[in-house]
Structure formats: C-alpha cells, structure tokens
C-alpha cells in the first residue's frame, strides 16, 4: 500500500505530465524540427503582441524568457508551466529574467505550443471540479478549492488564488463550479 501511495502522485508532479497525451518523453526541444504553419496575417498579429511585450530600450524586438509564457497565453494558447519550460530548453531560474528571445526564435516555440492538443474543454473542467463536490450538489467549498490550487499541480501563489477566487464564493463559502468555470474561460 505504502509504495503504491507514493507512486501514484509522483508521475503527476514530475515535468512531462502523463495526463497530457501529446507529451512525448523527448529530452530536448529542437526548434529546427518545427515547420511554421502560420499565415502571414497571423505572423503580423504575433508581431504586434510581441512588440507590446518588448521592453528593450531600442525596441530590439526581444523579450525575456520569463515573458515567453505570458505572451503565448496572451495570444490565446493554454500551455502548462511545464510545457513552457520544455520549449525554452529547461532554463535555470536565474536565466528566466536575463536570457532573451527574438521574434524568429519565438515563432517555432509558439508553433509547437499551438500544435499541442488542447485538453481543456468545459466538460473536462467541470468533471475535474466535480471531484471536490462532496455533496454532489453542484458546489464546492471555496476553501478546499483554494487549498487545491495552492498545493497541487502547478501551484498558484496565495495572491494568485485570491485574485482568481475574488467574488466567487457565496455567503456560505461555496462555489457553483459550472459558473466558476464559465467565469474563468470567459476572459
């Protein structure tokens, strides 16, 4: 029992996550193997967004590694932190603020993330949250959800959890999770 207990959670916590079907266990991400399938229009869109994140003095069209994930998400994709780290070549923590990416380096990274199958449908969400629905009545305890989000998976910080859950709980501290999921997905 005890060994089993330890095994189950572990694979979920380690970087390439088994729940993600598309995640091959390749050790390195090789940008040269990616063929870009974006249309010129899309590339123009990405450029606009890229420029908005570019904070270099002379507008050199470069962003830091740390911004890469935000940019990809801002463009509508939904990667996990792990996936981001993977495409960046598993950089060290101190590299995140210092190493830079230019637009041409960014494109294959973005392409790869775009290709990954999106496994976050409304139903997936609701089903996932149903796990915490002790009474089967469509609500979860806000406190429990906060705890889960801050301690499981790709943990959120306290302030992030706070921001996410702001104004979601009713007077009893319960959250109607279907409404909650709609709220998150409707940004």
């Amino acid at each position, binding site marked *: 029992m005890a060994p089993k207990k330890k095994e189950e959670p572990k694979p979920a916590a380690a970087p390439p996550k088994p729940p993600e079907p598309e995640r091959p266990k390749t050790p390195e991400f090789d940008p040269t193997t990616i063929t870009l399938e974006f249309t010129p229009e899309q590339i123009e869109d990405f450029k606009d967004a890229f420029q908005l994140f570019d904070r270099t003095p002379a507008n050199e069209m470069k962003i830091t590694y740390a911004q890469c994930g935000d940019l990809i998400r801002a463009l509508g994709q939904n990667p996990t932190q792990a996936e981001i780290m993977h495409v960046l070549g598993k950089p060290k923590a101190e590299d995140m603020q210092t190493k830079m990416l230019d637009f041409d380096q960014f494109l294959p990274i973005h392409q790869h993330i775009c290709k990954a199958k999106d496994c976050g449908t409304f139903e997936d969400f609701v089903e*996932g949250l149903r796990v915490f629905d002790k009474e089967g009545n469509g609500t979860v305890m806000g406190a429990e959800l906060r705890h*889960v989000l801050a301690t499981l998976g790709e943990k959120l910080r306290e302030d992030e959890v706070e921001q996410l859950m702001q104004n979601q709980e009713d007077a009893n501290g319960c959250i109607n999770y279907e409404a909650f999921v709609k709220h998150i997905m409707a*940004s």
Partner: protein
Amino acid sequence: MGCGVTKSNQFNKHSRKAIRAAVLIQRWYRQYVARTEMRRRYTWHIFQSIEYSGEQAQIKLYNFLGYLMDNFTPSSNERNLISHIFRENEVCQDAEWERYFCYKNIEVPEIYSGPHLTFPLTVEQAVGLVEAFRNKKQLHSRYVLQLLLETWRQLRMLPNISRISTCQSKEITICGDLHGQLEDLLLIFYKNGMPSLEKPYVFNGDFVDRGKDSIEILIILFSFLLVYPSEVHLNRGNHEDHIVNLRYGFTKEVLTKYKMHGKRILKLLQKIFSWLPLATVIDQKVLVLHGGISDITDLSILARLDRHNYVSALRPPKKRHQSSAGASIDSDFDEDVLSTNKLLQRRISLTYPKPLGTRESFQNRSLQDFSNRIKGKAVDEIEIHKRKLAILNMGTNSSEGMTQSVSSESINSDNAKDEWKQILDLLWSDPMIQDGCTPNEVRGGGCYWGPDVTEDFLNRHNLQLIIRSHECKQDGYEFCHNRKVLTLFSASNYYDVGSNRGAYVKLGPDLVPYLVQYQASSMTRELTVKQSVGRTERSALKVLREQLFAHKSDLICAFKKFDSENTGLVSLNNWASAVESVMYLGVPWRMLRGQLVTSKSTDGMIDYLEWFNELAIKGPNTDHIDQSLLETLYRHRSTVETIFRIVDTDNSGFITIEDFRQTWKLLSVYLKMEITDEAISDLAVTIDSNQDGSIDIDEFMEAFRLTDKKSRLERGRSMFMGTVNDLTKLEGDPNI
C-alpha cells in the same frame, strides 16, 4: 501534499483527477492573467500616447500664436485677439498690483456657510479648510484673494532652490503630481498626517489641471505653506503655467467656481506660479524637482536666475533686441518666408527642436512648417505685414507691438535663452533608458535624458538621488537609472478608475526612500482586477474610437489608396497600416481590431465605410452645417476651445460675434481649412439663439458634441483629447 491520506485505490484515482483538475484550472488562470496584462498594457499605451500627443499639440498651438504675434502688425485683428496672453512682464509697481487684487471690498454674505479666514493664518484654520473641502464647501473669493496675496508675499521671499534638512530624526514626505484630485491629497493626509513642525512635506508640482478640485488643492497647500513656512515646500510643475491651464481645465474650473472674481484670482495665480521655487535639495544629497534634467542642467544657474520672469515656461521673457530683430527682417527683406524661420528658430527652437527621429511613432514638424502652411492669401498678408514692420523698424525704436513686455533691464539675449532652457528642461524632461540626451519631441519641450547624464549630473553636484514626477506610473512610482532617479506620481486612477495607484515617499536622515502606495476611490476596492482593467480598457477604446471618427476623411483617403478598385473593402493588414499612417499613435491596431471593428466581414476583409457608420457619433441637429467642417471642429476641439478662451480676454465665458468671426479666421489659417463667412454665420446662429451678439463658449462646445458630459474621462480630462497629429498632418512631407 494533500492527497494520499487514505489508502484506497478509489481515492488515488480521485486524487489523480484532482490534480488534473487543478492543473487545468491553473493553466487557464495563467492564461487569463497574461491576457489581462496584455490588455492593461495596450490600454495604458493608448492613454499615454493620446495624453502626450495632446501636450505636444498644446505647445505647437502656442508656438503658432507666437509666430502670429511676431508677424502680424500691431493693429491687425488677429493679433489683438491673442496679444493679451503674451502680455507678461508688464512694467508695473507691486503697489498697483496690490490694489488690483484688493479683496477688502468683497463682502461675504450671511448665508455663506464655508470657512472664514483671519490672518495671520493659524493651523486650526488650515485644518479647518481641509475639513471644509472634504465636506464639499467652497472658500469665498474674498478669502481666496486674501490667501493668495499672503502666499504671493511669502513666495517672493523664497530662493529658487529650497535647501532643507532631515535634521535629527525628521522624516520628510514628498508627494508627486496631484492634478486637482482632492481625494488623493486627503488620502495622503489621512495615511501620513497633515504637515506640521514634525512632519515636513515637499509637493513636487502639477497641483492643478485635469482633476476637478485644483483650486481647493492650491488653497490647502498654500495655507499650510503660510502656517509652516519652514516645513512645507512647493516646487513648480509644468502645469503651474497659465497657458497650459487654458487647455487643461484649471482656468475653466476657476471661472466656473468663481464667476465674479475668477479673473482676478487667475491673474494673481499667474504671478504666484511664477514665484514658485524651482527645486528642493534635501541634506545636500537629494534633488527634488518636477520634470528632470538635461545634459546642460546647472544648479548654480538655476539658483541665481530671476524665476518670476518666466511666467510661462512655454515662452521666454521678452527681452528681444529690437535692432537684431529689425536687422534680420531687413536683410531678408527680399527673401521668402524661409527667412522668418531663421528668426523664429533662434528664439523658439527650444520649445520645438528639429526632429531627430528618436521616436518614429511621432512625426515632428518644426515651426518652419507653419509658414509653409500659411500659403495663399494669408501668406501674402504676412509678407505685406512683414515688410511694413521692417519699414517701421528701420531706424526707429518701434514701441508698438513689441512693447508690452520689453523689460527695462538690459539682459544679454543669449543669457536669457540659456536660463529659459534650464527652466524648460527642469519642468518638462523625462528619463529614458538609453544613454545620451535628446529633445523631448513627444511632449514638445525639455529633453529625454539617459543614465549617463544622471551619473554625470550627480557627480558634478555631489548628489546621490533625483526625485521627480511628471509621468504617470502604474504603481505610483518607478526607479530608473540604476535607482538614482525616482519618479513619483501621486494622482491615483489618473486615466480612469483603477488605472494606477498613487504613491508618496518618506526620507529620513538615512536618505533611504520609503514608499507608500494607495488608491483613492472606494469603487476600486470593490472591483476585481478583471473588472477594473475592463473599465479602463473600455474608456480607452471609447477615446480611441472618437479619435478615429474624428479623422474619418483622412482615413477614407488612406483606405482608398489600398482599394484601387473601389470595392469598399481592405485587408486587415492594409487596414492596420492605413490607420497607423493617419493616426500616428503607435498603438497595436491589429490587436485592437476585434474591439474597434465589430462588423463581421468575409474572408478577412474589412468594409471601411460600414465601419464609419459604426463609429459615428450622433450629434444634435447640425444638418445645416457642412459635414467636413463639423469633422474638423470635432477633431480639433481642444484647440478650438483653447483659442476661444484666449480670445475671451475678460474671462467671462462669452465672446462677441465679431471676435467669434475673427477667431474662425485665425483657426482657418492654423488648421489650413477654408471657412466661408456663410459657414461661420451658420455656426453662430446655432448658438446665439437669443441673438444678443455674444456666444457662450461652453454652450458652443456642448452644442457640437465637442464635450461629452457622460464620460468621467472627459469630464475632467476633455482637454487632452486633441492630438498633435491633427495639426501636423496638414503638410505633405514630414522631413523638411
């Protein structure tokens, strides 16, 4: 880890599911945060672009008026309309002024429920004023004038640069821009305590304009200045300037609140502003000033100049040498308008330097362009006048026209120019990330200065930190230049509710800045981040839509260039290029396309004519007015209003029909548009419904939907809507 407490397989399967669910939610959350951040950034970008563009437009307007002043004969109508704003350093005895500002005849009626002041002012009265304003009372004009007179007397005793010390254990509190936002000042006093012997304060300029309680803020600051002259220090900001006030709301606020005596109050404030100290130095190590520095900033020059000569930083004190002016006109007698440019450049180049192409998003025009613009009839007029003037000047000591502000002091004109630049740089400059020092073309005055300039400056003056304001920052403050420059901004929710926090800084004897942030308005506390970003974004987009609509003709022209077959459609790419080529705001148009163009179109093409129907701003019954005139009016509404207020010499809020006509002639030259007399009559008729021969400026602006009472943004901030591009795009080639 929370899972793995029980031993059942069932639970383990659940916990895996739980983790999966958690990961899902977390990644969605991160996406939501990234997108919100993106929206926040471009919203900020929009507001800031439009704000700075408006400031640049203001300076250009002023330069243009100066140009007219220099080139029209004294008797011309146009000149008379505007000459009074340049009537700065009138040679007048202080005693005369005291009589003019005398408050003694002003009676305070019994029903007045506001505070009564007696002088010398006590701290109880100062505190009482704060309370009164918190309760929305207004101070009676008699007391306002009295207070301002005392303040004027006090300020005249102060040096240009205040030197103060943290001595022993006093902490000095420094506040940045307040811009008429009383709520923020009250919040600062609430959190930090009011000024006192133990609690010295430095207020770093821009107390007025944009917000709606500028005069109340001044009254409070001046009261505490009088009660604690050694503990309260005020630095001048670029908005402590009557010319800027015409455009950005302070003039209007005072005239609205003080209908009878507003004009005198404004005149007295003009003097007070010119007497505000320029900078403060703490413990000989920390320099506090409003805008910033440049590569030539020299504290010793700043310390010894006569600061009160610079009533408006936008225009140098008039100490021209008649002969040199006359001579240059003489020698260029036969040349065309280019010659005037040389003269102008010598004098006015500081407020509008040559384009150096540092920021491509802002096309720059130098003053030379005005002469090119004034082609056709107007140019001939100018030529004629110029020649008349030259003849007049030859050999004679022409006292007309050049008169009003000729100082009796004989100051070397070069010296004056140096001093002027020192002040302009101090009030208008912004820091930049690159090394070097370049003219600040975005604002139209002052410089951008780099970390190397900071380093050099601090070393030369043996200082360790510069604290400045002038720029809105999202967190209320921002360090740059290796933490040697601190920008401090104290007006929270500046662009709109939720847009930014305000901050103040405390300095103790260790001179380590301790920052305190806040955000006024109870509304923001209840809004979620998402909601407040959403609100600000909606405001920004509304502003942007209005700007786009105001440029309809130019945009259609630009679209047609991409649409040679006249299909009425353009591709998204072309749409974005065309829009940027007309608007010059450097805003990410593609990203905003979804929000700006709501009509669906087939295969990525945009129906631009349909788009304008969407954007259309419905006005009152103005069918009898020419559409393109309306559009021009709308686009230049800030300029229109500013010029009206300038023409309204007695600050009554009304101008005569005749002046109204003359103003339109002026505007037609400036905006390079034909306005027939008939069109002017149509405009006048719409407003002067009682036919009594005068036009109410506010009514005029409202009638043509040139102000929109509903939006909070516009109510306090209508003034910054006009952009510089509206004025400069009238030329062809930017690279003159």
